[in-house]
């Protein structure tokens, strides 16, 4: 370890001075030597015999050789270095002393002294003693000064001034003045200020220092990290967008993925449904695969983090997978957002090719914080959040009076229910009156009660929630060893009363520069997440929006009010079933706990001048327990497993044996999964200035990754949580029959066991000529065990090439660059070819081991029949970009991209003679193209006030150019999964509504020549029109950052234009059934057709039951008509254009004055308040019926809640 090198500064100065501060000096030196000794303990100890043979080598390098061969360190002052020349030595196994004598004999001015394990080199005249080192000490002085803007000369307040290498520092006051007392006269000051280039100013004994800061074009010199390489923004060849934590304004969001909406041009984040922990869908530059993986990959400090629930195509996820995703979260759910230093989003092929096949959907690279040299810095922050519950004002739903009136109308019009409704609420009272169980007076009384009830289900099931987040971090460093520790606690209460997410994280990171050419980065992290939610049969939001308000939650006496829910004859249930949502919530539950640990070791070793080796080892393990349970008192058990309400039959009653699969106890459904994965990577970099101006950087690397997943699913009947988790396994005939017939409600335990292995080799080459022309090529081979024994399918090359021309470096622009009109201008172009896979696409026959059946036979089932034609999907990407910076104030970047997806895998519906419904074929071509725009800069920047604004926008056009799959079926047309040539993926189709007829029945345009407008149509000659795509044409965000003195206000807007979504179904069932007494209906029904003539001013059909609706359509003479409900729900009337602009967040922050903070011993403190989702404008508000346009098409369409945060951030 070199203590000194030319141009470098010792941690404390050692130079000739004349102030005799002897004692202090001795202490310092002793401390230094002590420190060195300690360090030595960890260094390798070699033989004390020295052998060196060097010809005309720099003296320093000879010292270095000795250090390597002995356990000694050299120690000398900077001023001696110029005296060092070249030396020629030839020593063979001599003692240290002899060696030193020999080496220094050509240096008459130098002598040496050995103290413990340190060799002090010093001038001859200091020969007297070690104590004669007074020159080590320098003077301590007080300084004052003013900081000004270089161009305007205006003084700057709030500029941070730190003494380098110490924790000392201050801020400039009004007038830009600052003062620092008692600092070393040779200290260096780090001067930094937002929007200005940081400077290092040497004090050099001056007592008054005036500093001028140059406004910077902040982003150009920032480091861009791809996980494997690092560039500056200026020289990065690919399209990489960078975010810093302060850009993530959604302060209350629990996990990182939820904060990215509207921040990056070309990145669309959807499905952010306000459920704690639920991961959103992220698309970078459109959707690049139809059936294959669509999600970008997450790379944390260079390592891919795997999804806890491996769903890489969320569009095709099953409901079970969605529910697990909601409970467990995405790959980065366990990452504490406060630990993030920066986020880089890799967009084009040039940036992502190095990640190979999995990166075709983009890569999100997260760099976490590390410690910095200097005294410990402690940061504490806490955030408190309240989120407002939804209310009836947000939805168009009937109140209880309207609902009772609707029941009355149904009775009066003589319509029928297909299944007899229960004796519930008003309808029950009516039945009682009809059956003469009650008198007219009693009936009137009941009507008045129900009509005035107005139960507020939102109030009963939701709350204004309160959440908190605390984070503590300590970082610092001694010499070249830095550390960072953090711990955090997050507790979010969801708006739904039972949902709750707790997360605890801890992480530590140690960076050690062991030698000049050897460093280690050691990282260990752990987190625990506890998520509490609802049983999968309960959706409180759905319940609140669909349940009649004329139904009580509580009886007048305060007890829970039950009603008989679906005493369905179809299920042969022998008795009534009682339901109350509050009971149901109390008697069921769903809890998950995830524990994650990861450790990472990276070593970086430079050798042979131009080479650098970097090795990374990463291991992560996580285990998740999800317990879903229901007790015997729940309706879920009564309805599905018992068939009658608890206690209706004595256990000896024959119904118990015949019907009750689980006569006593409830059910516990545990899900356990363990995920272990490791990554080893070796990378060798060669970096050399190959010519006077040309620099070549070449990298070759290998990587192996293995992901092992083990899961266990069970369903345990007879569960008694209240009795300490005891089980009573049922013995009834109904249970035995259900088990022997493999009733899915009592599924057998299942262990899921998978290993995915990947081997990759990658290479990257960058040639930089004079910082003007940058050429880059990347390539990677990936192999995976997913493709079986045939090596033909195992490897797929990925490559990219990019060229960047930094025009601002050219002489002919020098006039513009010198006066800062243009401070940067570059053009870049890239091209790449990438493969993508569908994780479970196999070209060969693959089977899955299944349960041993009830006869004791081993059973296997088909996972995939042979499909030898299967190939990788390929994506050819092109990117053309222009970036420039103006007046040192504005940055502009525009990119045009086109991604041609070739041979995309499509599930083609095939003849069932194939023995499968679909065959996966490389049958589709699709392109995505668009323009991305990022504009940022200082609109206003002066002494007190700055306004920084950044606008991102991107359009995306997706088009399927080839799809050899035949005509899309009706279902996929309606749900947006149709693959049709000439249309975009995600295009939704609709039936064309043609008004109501004079009976109030909706009419549609058909393809039938005889009947252009009809009440229904045959699926074969149906007519559908395209309405638009689910994906936006244009989206992005606009962030504004205003700073006035110590106040900062951030206003973040996001916008989305040109997407279409379908409204929630008007009719809940496939045929228009009437609302059952317990159901609420949309208040749209109030405007329904009631009498001939109404069709002129309403589009809401007449009230009809199943039978009349069938009569209406069969009168059309079709064999197999599409039902009224399907037609109306999927008509163009029920599609909305989801154009919106939303005020995502407003955030006001106050930086407390230093005077105040110093009084409490803190170095700085900030308080802030923020509001989110305050307001949005949308183009189709009338049709949306109060539903938030952003979530309208989602499966759980809960509006984004209004959220208010308050927090503090203190540094010590």
């Amino acid at each position, binding site marked *: 370890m070199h203590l000194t090198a030319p141009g470098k500064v010792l941690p404390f100065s050692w130079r000739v001075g004349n102030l005799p501060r002897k004692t202090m000096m001795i202490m310092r030196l002793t401390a230094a030597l002590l420190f060195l000794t300690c360090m030595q303990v960890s260094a390798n100890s070699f033989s004390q015999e020295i052998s060196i043979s060097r010809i005309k080598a720099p003296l320093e390098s000879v010292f270095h050789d000795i250090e390597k061969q002995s356990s000694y360190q050299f120690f000398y002052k900077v001023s001696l270095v110029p005296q060092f020349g070249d030396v020629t030595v030839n020593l063979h196994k001599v003692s240290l002393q002899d060696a030193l004598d020999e080496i220094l004999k050509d240096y008459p001015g130098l002598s040496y002294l050995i103290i413990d394990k340190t060799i002090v080199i010093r001038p001859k005249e200091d020969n007297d003693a070690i104590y004669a080192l007074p020159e080590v000490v320098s003077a301590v002085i007080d300084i004052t000064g003013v900081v000004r803007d270089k161009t305007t000369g205006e003084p700057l307040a709030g500029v941070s001034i730190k003494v380098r290498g110490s924790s000392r520092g201050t801020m400039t006051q009004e007038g830009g003045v600052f003062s620092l007392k008692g600092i070393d006269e040779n200290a260096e000051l780090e001067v930094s200020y937002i929007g200005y280039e940081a400077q290092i100013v040497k004090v050099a004994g001056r007592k008054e220092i005036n500093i001028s800061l140059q406004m910077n074009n902040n982003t150009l010199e920032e480091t861009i990290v791809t996980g494997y390489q690092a560039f500056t923004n200026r020289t990065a060849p690919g399209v990489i967008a960078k975010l810093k934590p302060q850009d993530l304004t959604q302060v209350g969001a629990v996990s990182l993925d939820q904060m990215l909406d509207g921040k990056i041009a070309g990145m669309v984040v959807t499905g952010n449904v306000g459920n704690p922990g639920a991961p959103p869908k992220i698309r970078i530059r459109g959707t690049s695969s139809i059936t294959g993986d669509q999600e970008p990959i997450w790379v944390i400090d260079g390592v891919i983090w795997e999804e806890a629930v491996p769903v890489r195509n969320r569009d095709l996820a099953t409901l079970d997978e969605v529910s697990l995703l909601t409970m467990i979260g995405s790959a980065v759910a366990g990452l504490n957002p406060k630990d993030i230093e920066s986020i880089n989003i890799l967009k084009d092929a040039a940036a992502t090719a190095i990640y190979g096949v999995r990166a075709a959907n983009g890569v999100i690279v997260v760099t976490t914080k590390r410690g910095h040299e200097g005294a410990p810095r402690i940061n504490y922050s806490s955030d408190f959040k309240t989120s407002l519950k939804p209310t009836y004002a947000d939805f168009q739903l009937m109140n209880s009076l309207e609902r009772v009136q609707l029941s009355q109308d149904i009775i009066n019009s003589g319509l029928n229910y297909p299944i007899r409704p229960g004796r519930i609420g008003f309808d029950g009272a009516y039945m009682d009156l009809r059956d003469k169980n009650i008198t007219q007076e009693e009936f009137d009384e009941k009507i008045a009660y129900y009509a005035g009830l107005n139960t507020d289900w939102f109030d009963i099931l939701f709350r204004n929630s309160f959440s908190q987040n605390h984070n503590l971090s300590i970082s610092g460093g001694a010499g070249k060893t830095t550390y960072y520790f953090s711990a955090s606690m997050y507790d979010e209460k969801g708006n739904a009363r039972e949902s709750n997410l707790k997360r605890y994280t801890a992480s530590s990171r140690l960076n050690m520069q062991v030698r000049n050419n050897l460093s280690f980065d050691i990282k260990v992290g752990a987190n625990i997440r506890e998520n509490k939610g609802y049983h999968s049969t309960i959706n409180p939001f759905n319940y609140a929006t669909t349940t009649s308000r004329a139904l009580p939650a509580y009886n007048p006496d305060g007890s829970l009010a039950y009603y008989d829910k679906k005493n369905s*004859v179809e299920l*042969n249930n022998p008795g009534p079933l009682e339901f109350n949502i509050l009971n149901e919530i109390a008697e069921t539950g769903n809890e998950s706990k995830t524990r994650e640990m990861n450790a990472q070791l990276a070593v970086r070793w430079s050798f042979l001048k131009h080479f650098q080796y970097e090795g990374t080892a990463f291991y992560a393990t996580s285990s998740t327990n999800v317990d879903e349970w229901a007790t015997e008192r729940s309706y879920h058990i009564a309805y599905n497993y018992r068939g009658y309400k608890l206690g209706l039959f004595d256990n000896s009653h024959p119904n118990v044996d015949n019907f009750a699969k689980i006569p006593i106890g409830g059910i516990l459904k545990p899900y356990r999964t363990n995920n272990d994965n490791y990554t080893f990577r070796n990378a060798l970099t060669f970096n050399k200035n190959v010519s006077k101006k040309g620099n070549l950087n070449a990298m070759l690397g290998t990587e*192996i990754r293995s992901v092992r997943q083990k899961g266990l699913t069970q369903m345990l009947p007879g569960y008694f949580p209240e009795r300490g988790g005891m089980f009573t396994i049922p013995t009834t005939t109904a249970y035995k029959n259900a088990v022997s017939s493999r009733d899915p409600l009592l599924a057998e335990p299942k262990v899921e066991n998978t290993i995915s292995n990947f081997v990759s080799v990658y290479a990257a080459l960058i040639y930089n000529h004079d910082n003007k022309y940058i050429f880059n090529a990347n390539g990677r081979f990936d192999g995976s065990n997913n493709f079986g024994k045939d090596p033909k399918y195992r490897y797929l090359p990925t490559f990219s090439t990019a060229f960047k021309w930094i025009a601002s470096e050219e002489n002919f622009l020098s006039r513009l660059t010198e006066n800062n009109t243009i401070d940067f201008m570059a053009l870049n172009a890239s091209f790449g070819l990438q493969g993508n896979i569908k994780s479970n696409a196999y070209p060969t026959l693959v089977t899955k081991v299944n349960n041993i059946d009830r006869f004791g036979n*081993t059973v296997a089932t088909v996972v995939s029949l*042979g499909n030898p034609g299967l190939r990788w999907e390929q994506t050819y990407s092109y990117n053309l970009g222009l970036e420039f910076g103006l007046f040192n104030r504005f940055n502009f970047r525009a990119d045009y991209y086109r991604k041609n997806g070739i041979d995309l895998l499509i599930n083609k519906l095939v003849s069932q003679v194939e023995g499968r419904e679909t*065959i996966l074929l490389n049958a589709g071509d699709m392109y995505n193209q668009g323009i991305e725009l990022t504009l940022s800069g200082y609109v206003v920047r002066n002494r007190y006030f700055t306004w920084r604004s950044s606008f991102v926008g991107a359009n995306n056009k997706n088009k399927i150019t080839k799809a050899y799959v035949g005509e899309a079926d009706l279902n996929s047309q309606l749900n947006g999964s149709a693959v049709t040539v000439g249309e975009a993926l995600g295009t939704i189709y609709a039936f064309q509504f043609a008004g109501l007829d004079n009976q109030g029945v909706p009419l549609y345009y058909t393809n039938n020549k005889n009947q252009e407008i009809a009440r229904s149509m045959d699926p074969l000659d149906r007519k559908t029109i395209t309405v638009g795509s689910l994906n936006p044409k244009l989206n992005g965000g606009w962030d504004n950052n205003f700073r006035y003195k110590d106040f900062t206000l951030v206003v973040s807007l996001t916008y989305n234009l040109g997407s279409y979504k379908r409204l929630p179904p008007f009719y809940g069932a496939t045929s228009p059934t009437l609302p059952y007494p317990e159901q609420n209906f949309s208040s749209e029904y109030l405007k329904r057709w009631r009498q001939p003539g109404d069709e002129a001013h309403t589009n809401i059909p007449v009230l009809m039951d199943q039978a009349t609706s069938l009569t209406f359509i069969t009168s059309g003479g079709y064999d197999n008509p599409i039902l009224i409900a399907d037609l109306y729900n999927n008509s163009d009337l029920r599609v909305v254009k989801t154009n919106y602009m939303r005020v995502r967040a407003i955030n006001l922050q106050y930086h407390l004055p230093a005077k105040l903070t110093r009084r409490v011993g803190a170095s700085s403190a900030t308080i802030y308040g923020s509001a989110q989702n305050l307001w949005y404008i949308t183009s189709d508000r009338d049709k949306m019926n109060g539903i938030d346009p952003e979530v309208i098409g989602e499966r759980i369409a809960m509006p984004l809640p209004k959220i208010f945060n308050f927090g503090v951030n203190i540094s010590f």
Partner: protein
Amino acid sequence: MNRLILIFCAVTIFLSSCTKFLEETSPSIVIPTKVTHYSELLYGQGYPTQTTGYNRFSELITDDVQWNHLPNPNPLYGPMREYTRKEGWNVFLFQDDPELDNNNGTDYFWGETYKAIAVCNVVIDGLTNVDDTDERLRKHTKGQAHALRAMHYLSLMNMYGMPYVPGTDSEWGVPIKTSPVAEDRLYKRNTVHEVYALIKADIDSALNLIDSEKKMKLYEMNWYAAMIMATRINLYMKNYDEVIRLGEAYLLKKSELPVSTATLTNGTFMGFTASWSGVTTNPEVVFNFGMSPSTYNSVYSASAGYDAFIPSQSLRQVFAKSLKAGESDQRMTNTTGNTASWFFAVASSQYAPRKIYLNNVMKNTLRTGEVLLNLAEAYAEKGNIAKAVTHLNYLRSSRIRNYIGFVPADFNQASLIEFTREERRRELCFEEHRLADLKRWGMPPLEHQVQDYTGKYRAQLQQGDYGYIFQIPLKERQLNFEIKPIPRPQRVIEPI
């Protein structure tokens, strides 16, 4: 530099071990390489399971079923189950595209059968050149796959094809797929002779390959089952000599029938107790397969007091018709003379076919009784009255109490053929034989009547009517327009 070399050596060693690293497959996912992998797969998905139980409708097109309208239905449940009517009526009344009005919209039987065929195909292909030492098991498993494929194609033909007529081919077969890999193409119907040629070749291969010495397992395709299928296939193809050769060979190895006493109680004749193990009590059952899903009950519902399909009067009469004074057929009436019997149950005052009435058991069996009937029919067709009567007497003596029996002089060839056909109807009712039998016996005219609270209706089939043949599902025809639809005429439903 030495270190550099060292690193590259390490990298090289590491890369050379990649092959193994990448070959490892996950424990629960297997790329089949061993015979046992294939036998597990065949067992898992190559058998007829009728998971979705659509084939139940094949009985509805025959004369074994009638519609029973209850004058006083159970008031709790209303006059009838909507879906019983919707699913069943259109088949029962010979409508042109019956599955279109089905709630599920799809005829699952078609697709599920081809799925099982696909598994047989990959097993046959995979076992042709698998590298495994267990040659005996390899042959046996391959033989099982052939036998199963023959069964699947035969049941497809019974549903969707014209019967086999020697010497006269017909275009109304079903598409053949024997390739193990995905082929993105359209399939035409193969001719009836082409399909039967495949079926015949498959069953012949099966008999060559299946290990006849292997211990019989009831729920696995075995030598006896393959032999029964072989007699049936040859009977359908009118190769009577072959039926006789195979049938007699079978009887030499296995001829035991249940004795006609009370050892078999009601319903256990076929082994159809609530649990599968009951099958083992009947010595003539050699193969038990299929699954009777609970939805079967929705059509032949007798428990809850719905309007339902029940065994027809003509079927019930045909039992009584053959009896001599003092004889009592336990298939129709039980030991105590009640109407509840081996084959029929009575619940809520309606008949129900016991063979498909119980839930949660594998509904189908192959059994010795069929061999006797196949032989009797073959002998009758060949004019060997004595042999035929011997086999019929042997069968009937185990079914009928106080059996007196017949002598050859009781019949001429025509009346014997008639009698064997009736005996076949009695013995094999509700085992998915009747439709195939009616078809190969010339597709006679047929009338079905229904009734609901709005009135009484009927529909008729003419002699040789295309209405005997199920339409290949619309879902298939929409994707595969090479499939020619059966010209089933639009059938009038007349009020009576």
